[in-house]
């Protein structure tokens, strides 16, 4: 199936869940990511149970600090 991840089309095997996609995309720290699926922000608890479908639009949104300290 085809997924559009952060605006880029990529092919994946069918039936992938959001949680599995995070692993496949080598997201090192899933705690630092919020996921929007087809315009809806997912709860963290939904990651493992949400199966993706062909043409789904997924946005990985990353926590970013800034300014003066840790970054």
């Amino acid at each position, binding site marked *: 199936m085809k997924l559009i991840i952060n605006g880029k089309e990529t092919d994946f095997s069918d039936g992938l869940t959001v949680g599995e996609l995070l692993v496949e995309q080598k997201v090192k720290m899933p705690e630092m990511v919020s996921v*929007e699926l087809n315009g809806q922000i997912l709860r963290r608890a939904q990651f493992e149970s949400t199966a993706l479908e062909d043409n789904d639009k997924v946005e990985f949104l*990353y*926590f970013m*600090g*800034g*300014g003066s*300290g*840790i970054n």
Partner: protein
Amino acid sequence: MELTEQQIQRYSRHIILEQVGGTGQEKLLSSKVLIVGAGGLGAPAALYLAAAGVGTIGIIDADKVDLTNLQRQIIHHTGDVGVEKVASAEAKMRAINPDVKVKTYHQRAKADNIREVIRGYDFVIDGTDNFPAKFLVNDACYFEKIAFSHAGILRFDGQLITVLPGQTTCYRCIFHAPPPADAVPSCSQAGVLGVLAGVVGSLQATEAIKYLLGIGDLLTGTLLTYNALTMEFRKVRLKRNPECRLCGENPQITELKDEEQIVCDLKDCKR
């Protein structure tokens, strides 16, 4: 408010713009913006807002200028190391534009003081460096109903969104709560391209000016992301989250609280 001859000259490149004009410039001169954090994002925002003639600029920060700040916090100069950041920022803003009234708050933004600090300002710029503070600014602006610009930067990436509390997608709609402290990249792993702070902080100042003038399209319900390596800007549309703990249908956050998280300080992490 009547513009003086001096002011007409100083702001001529604004006044000549159809969307600004003399009326717009007068509006800016009577506007108030608060900048939370005199760091990487706050520095360019403060400089441009002062130059633009925003009449009152408040700036809150508890830190002193450190040598490691100078790579990106362009409002602070080499001679300012050791000086309170708000005092250093105030001096530069006054030097750029004596029209501007600068209010400094040499304190950490906390749940028990931030509402009083932001009250009365027309717009807030979140230039904070840690996640609890970002949630605090979001929540305080929600309770005080003040529009604000949120931004974050990391390594070569930056992002920002403008929030009209109660009307458009807030920070908590997207990120529910601060990440666990052990997930936050450690000081030695993280870094940031200095100029990135300039790009993103300047974009925040742009949003403030547009909001004050009532012109253009704000980044509301839209996260603008930027990557300095690919030079790609993307707008990600983000709807309000009905499950948002702050501005959703069943809000669980009904008063301001400090979110707990360990924030490491770059100084302590030098090995």
